């Protein structure tokens, strides 16, 4: 009973918020915009999926940050948690109901955006959209959404003020996204790894370096999207560039999916283990 009621209340409370509706709408609009902008550029809709997946990698964590950073920290700072835990809800039920609730909203945002993109592709692209490719895009993006939502809700559970939760969530986004991928020159994971190996006087195997590189949910998501383009890598140069060329574990798409699944499950579990002993009030 506890999980179901906490989940239901949280979803209803969030779904009636203009912020949630606005955020989902903006994300759907952005993805739709990518597809609309490329109507006259590419014949095949899967090429637009490729660009949309990069948008998702960069923007989506920022989109769901406002939906998640106050999931638990907000309840703690406002005292709402006393109401929920004053009822016979366990902390396990409360924590996971919050996570599943926010992840559901994030997945709903992805589903609406994908549905909108499919519709545009069906109506305006030269080639008909491949339903299976869109379905794969939806599935992988949903898993990425769950991984990021799980991470952000965990950060939220570890903080008791709004400001710390916000800093924590945006910090997590930066480290797991732009920093891990090396988006900003010098400030990247590679630089740190180089510094450490140099300090220790050791050399890192390329396979290990790539393995570390794919351990973030964001980089794992990009790696996993290779699954979408089975059989059509050669149609576009951009897509062929992401095709795996080695037998390294980091280049296996199943491993990338596994990494995202771990972030979606193990991180929230660790978050709960921390949350179960925090003091309320």
């Amino acid at each position, binding site marked *: *009973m*506890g999980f*179901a*009621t906490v989940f*239901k*209340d*949280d979803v*209803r*409370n*969030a779904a*009636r*918020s203009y912020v949630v509706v606005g955020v989902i709408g903006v994300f759907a609009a952005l993805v739709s915009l990518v597809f609309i902008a490329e109507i006259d550029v590419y014949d095949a809709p899967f090429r637009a999926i490729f660009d949309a997946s990069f948008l998702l990698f960069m923007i989506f964590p920022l989109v769901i940050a406002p939906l998640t950073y106050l999931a638990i920290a907000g309840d703690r700072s*406002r*005292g*709402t948690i*006393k*109401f929920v*835990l*004053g*009822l*016979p*809800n*366990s902390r396990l039920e409360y924590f996971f109901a919050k996570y599943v609730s926010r992840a559901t909203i994030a997945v709903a945002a992805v589903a609406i955006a994908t549905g909108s993109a499919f519709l545009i592709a069906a109506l305006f692209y030269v080639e008909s959209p491949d339903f299976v490719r869109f379905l794969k895009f939806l599935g992988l993006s949903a898993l990425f959404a769950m991984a990021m939502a799980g991470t952000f809700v965990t950060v939220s559970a570890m903080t008791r003020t709004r400001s710390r939760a916000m800093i924590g969530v945006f910090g997590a986004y930066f480290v797991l996204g732009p920093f891990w991928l090396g988006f900003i020159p010098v400030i990247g994971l590679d630089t740190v790894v180089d510094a450490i190996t140099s300090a220790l006087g050791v050399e890192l195997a390329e396979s290990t370096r790539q393995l570390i590189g794919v351990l973030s949910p964001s980089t794992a998501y990009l790696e996993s999207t290779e699954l979408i383009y089975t059989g059509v890598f050669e149609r576009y140069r951009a897509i062929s560039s992401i095709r795996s060329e080695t037998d390294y574990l980091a280049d296996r798409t199943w491993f990338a999916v596994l990494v995202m699944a771990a972030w979606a499950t193990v991180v929230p579990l660790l978050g709960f283990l921390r949350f179960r002993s925090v*003091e*309320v*009030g």
Partner: protein
Amino acid sequence: MTTISTDGLTRRFGDVVAVDGLTMTVEREEVYGFLGPNGAGKSTTIDMLLGFKKPSAGSATVLGEDVTKRSRAVRSRIGLLPEGYELYRNLTGRELIASAIETKGAHDDPDEILDRVGLDPDDARRAVGDYSTGMTQRAALGVALAGEPDLLILDEPSSGLDPKGIKLLRRIVRQEAERGATVFFSSHHLDQVERVCDRVGILHDGRLVAENAVDDLREELDAGATMEVDVDAVPDDLGMDDVEGVGGVTVDGTTVQVTCRRPGAKMPALRRIDDRATVEDVVIEDASLESVFEEYTAEGIDGSAEGSADATDPQRQAAEGD
């Protein structure tokens, strides 16, 4: 039978001792007033009773369960109205109460509870975020009442309520006690505690400095009552010297003021005056709990005169209208 029992319950925050060796018992079907100024440690005590905070030392049982080990079992049998909270602002009052009923596995009718706490059907179907403070407090009280709890924990329950709401609160507290529930009524509003509670514990700087029935507390401090008797003419000898329980006599014009240390002293003193003069009017004022409280804490509530006879204070207005 004991509903709440604490033994040396202590909570420290660094060097600050918020609750210091609290030992108390609250019996079943009792309305227990937990009185103290802000910062006395009342909410921290409640947090420990609910398992929200861990005691630094000592122990507590609620409804026979160890609060540190069986907090959920405790919470399944209580109704809580906490202090300083926000409800989910996009849910309606009715949804919140229905959710509490569902969580407790109870079969209450949410509309009956809404009616009991005085939220009309139209308001009950509006989002809580649009409620006034008083309406929010009524909805929160409704959540606490869900599932007919064995113990009702109310932390500053009259906050934000208007005089009508305060009267309603008192009525609900009495109804709950009559039903067989124990009520733990934490407040710094003396009038409320005085009017609804069977017994009072006074907390000051984390320590329980007094615990007794309100009348007994007054008696302990010789703070019983003052009787003002208007007579046609004040006789030379009022004959009060041998009336047991009379603490002092003063005369102002044709008014005789008699301080009675215990309730039983009033009638003998009045008869003695009536033997010697024609009594025209009598006014009896019990010493307020505030005077008792000040004796124990050596300060007013919050260091101010809150709780005193302020005509604009809703607490006082509700008391007068009761």
